[in-house]
């Protein structure tokens, strides 16, 4: 069963608030000295793909759209055991919205060869958008299932566990299909084996440009956006936490309860 996993390289979000800086001109985060990582749920998607390959064989390709540095993300994926990787990088593609990204990824996937299963992370680690997966499915004219934590494949179909409000649904779809992955205890991304890391470091990742893919320029780049991002501002939170003290836990508990009563919450 062949799988393509779409991954995105982002600035490590696990940083203290003081280290987060926005560039007022581009309205994007400033990298500074922060490290780059693969978006968290994309890593879960890589893990799901690896587990499926362990059960059913096949080839996994990591596909990324980004700056040239994103080759590092693709190599990182290969270090986890992914068979091959491709980076699409072109200055004309920067600033695309989710529709544009989906279009680009779809073209790239056609060039790779439409696999049985396409995986993405359910939510993007920086923008927080959750649109690319289903949009990609639309571009490819195949079904999609979003916020899936587990996948089982059999007889040309998958059964996906889609998380809903009060539990989950088991959804069956024929392949090919796009699934966007949510984390749970079965898809914790594995630590990479050194052998794989070193092997990946020695490989070169092919970089495709817009021209290689036959992309429709009207839907990519800043000009192709359907909505304009006019402003991005940091949410100010005033830290006004009142610390409840006490010499013993019983005392602390007492004071906390009293305080909540005073605030009319209890």
């Amino acid at each position, binding site marked *: 069963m062949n799988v393509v996993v779409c991954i995105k390289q982002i600035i490590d979000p*696990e940083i*203290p608030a*003081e280290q987060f800086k926005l560039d007022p001109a581009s309205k994007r985060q400033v990298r500074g*000295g922060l*490290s780059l990582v693969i978006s968290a749920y994309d890593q879960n998607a890589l893990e799901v793909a690896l587990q499926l390959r362990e059960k059913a064989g096949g080839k996994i390709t990591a596909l990324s759209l980004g700056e040239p540095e994103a080759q590092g993300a693709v190599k990182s994926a290969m270090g986890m055991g992914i068979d091959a990787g491709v980076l699409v990088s072109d200055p004309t593609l920067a600033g695309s919205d989710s529709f544009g990204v989906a279009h680009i990824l779809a073209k790239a996937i056609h060039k790779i060869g439409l696999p049985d299963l396409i995986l993405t992370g359910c939510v993007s680690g920086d923008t927080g958008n959750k649109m690319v997966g289903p949009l990609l499915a639309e571009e490819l004219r195949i079904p999609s299932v979003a916020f899936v934590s587990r996948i089982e494949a059999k007889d040309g179909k998958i059964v996906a566990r889609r998380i809903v409000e009060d539990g989950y649904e088991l959804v069956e779809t024929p392949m090919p299909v796009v699934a966007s992955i949510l984390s749970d205890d079965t898809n914790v991304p594995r630590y990479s*084996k*050194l*052998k794989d890391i070193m092997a990946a470091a020695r490989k070169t990742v092919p970089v495709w440009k817009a021209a290689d893919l036959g992309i429709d320029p009207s839907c990519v780049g800043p000009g192709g956006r359907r909505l304009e991002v006019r402003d991005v501002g940091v949410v100010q939170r005033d830290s006004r936490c009142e610390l409840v003290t006490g010499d013993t836990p019983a005392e602390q508990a007492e004071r906390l309860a009293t305080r909540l009563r005073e605030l009319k919450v209890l």
Partner: protein
Amino acid sequence: MPFRELHWNISAHWLIYPLFLPFAVACLYGCYRVLQVVLVGQPDAGRPPLAAQIRVVADQVLLQRRLLAQPIAGSIHVAISWGFAILFVATCLVAAQDYLGVPTLRGAFYLYFMSLTVDLGGVAAIVGVALALVRRYGARSERLWKPRDQEGYALFLWLLLAILVSGFVVEGLRIAATADPWGLWSPGGWLVAAGFTGLSSAQQALWHRVTWWGHAVLAFGFIGLVPFTLIRHTLAAPANIALRRAAASGVIAPVALEDAEHFGVSTVRGFPRKDLLDLMACTECGRCQDACPAWTTGKPLTPKGLILDLRDHLMAEVAGRSSGKTMVGEAVSEEVLWACTTCGACHQACPVFIEPIPKIVEMRRFLVMEEARFPETMQAALRGMENRGHPYQGAVPSRTAWTEGLNVPVLAEKGTAEYLYWVGCAAAFDERAQKVARAFATILQAAGVDFAILGDEERCTGDVARRIGNEFLFQMHAQANAEALNRYGVKRILTTCPHCFNTLKHEYPEFGGRYQVTHHTEFIARLLRQGQVRLTKSLGQGVAYHDSCYLGRHNRMYAAPRDILSQISGVRAIELDRHGENGFCCGAGGGMMWLEERTGKRVNVERTEEALRIRPDVVGTACPFCLSMFEDGIRAKDATDTLQVLDLAELVVRAM
């Protein structure tokens, strides 16, 4: 002229040689087999110079220094081993008279050595064996019985006893039968002789002959058994001591990763030969086990068990009967490997200088680098090191956050300084440990020391990564740090963390980082002695200093912290039971700071209880991990009102 008739009553004494031959062959064959087993390992790296080794061997084999660290058990061993050595020498000296004509059985030498000394040696040996039997079967000393029952050893002790007693019986019968005028010079034999005076001459002669040959068979049988049983330690231990590793216990050897086919060790053949010799030299005494903080607190790890399991696996492998059992996972469980704090107590305790830590680290390297199979919290710590350069969660904004209000110069701005204060990750990112950095910086400033910190150019030294087994990550960090330090031309480093100290001093030269590294306790002690820091206040507290494994045992630094305490007025220094080189680990080393203990009692709780028993006001520490472990332990024991833990730098500042 005092003398003894050579081979009295034993006419066919020359038969002893053909009798001995098969046993000798068996023994040689056994030794050859042991050598073969050891040689399946990998060739070894460096070795300390021979001159140094001879001294250590003499110390341990002749003076049995480590064995005597436990006086009673040690004395038993001295009695048995020296007793037997003397008896063996005496036997050889008899042969010397027989073949070389050296008059050993004549005159004063005969009386004082061959009779008296030898007899006393024999008596000592008998007392030793008897006490050994009592220890093992009466008192049932735990370290002898866990983790494996050792019923078979009764055989050795009884055999030894039989050899000794039969020897005295032979002597007694001779003394009685020949009415030896110098019998009293052999007090043991003389006493035994008293029991045989009732027999007729013919009976005495017959029994003498029977016992003489019986004694010979027992003795030869024992010799034949040596290489096949733990008694092989008589040969293997001196060899093991002589061939011990050059590096100190706290140092892990580097390994070239570039073109390595495999990482770490996953089969016995992957171990260096020295490590396999270790396995064969083990006497199963269990002193390592008693000293191990993991075993003491109920974890499945015991160094003795580890060595014996590896030995069994090695023997099975070489004999082809290991039936595909994996070394890492089946012979040695992963849980065992992840319980080790690398405290080195086992190294310290072992009388034959066995080294469990390098074996554990090599097996961890296999799990981490080859299999990527290791505890999740450790994975998170290593990921933090990869992404952020430190293993802590990321709440603190930068490595200079602790300096607020202190005006601590950063090397990038200052350009150069006499000393570089290597702050370490704990003091930068752990809220409690930041106070230690502040205290030390305060002291340095008060003493007018010219120092600077690297600030955000500092990355984790990598100690944690190396001990967890990710050698690759360690080497990347070491390389980057050494480059940064060399770029600034740093020569002298001060540090408040023993792990950083140990790694910077011993493990960085490999990466081009050669510095004079001083731990802050040493430096502060010096500043105090030289009067560069004045202490004006009296503290009036009982302080128990907790020796950090990486400062104390691994680097033998016990004096400086105690010196500091002695220079603070009003401080009453109390020693914990397990202190100095017998210090008990706080539980955080070896990457364990990032692993939840799920079995048994937590190591830091055990150590805190020990501290509480002697009722100090303060536990003094010299390591941010120990500090953190004690804070946690004190909270767990609900003793925050009665006991405080402070780094020695903090104590000094309070007295300034």
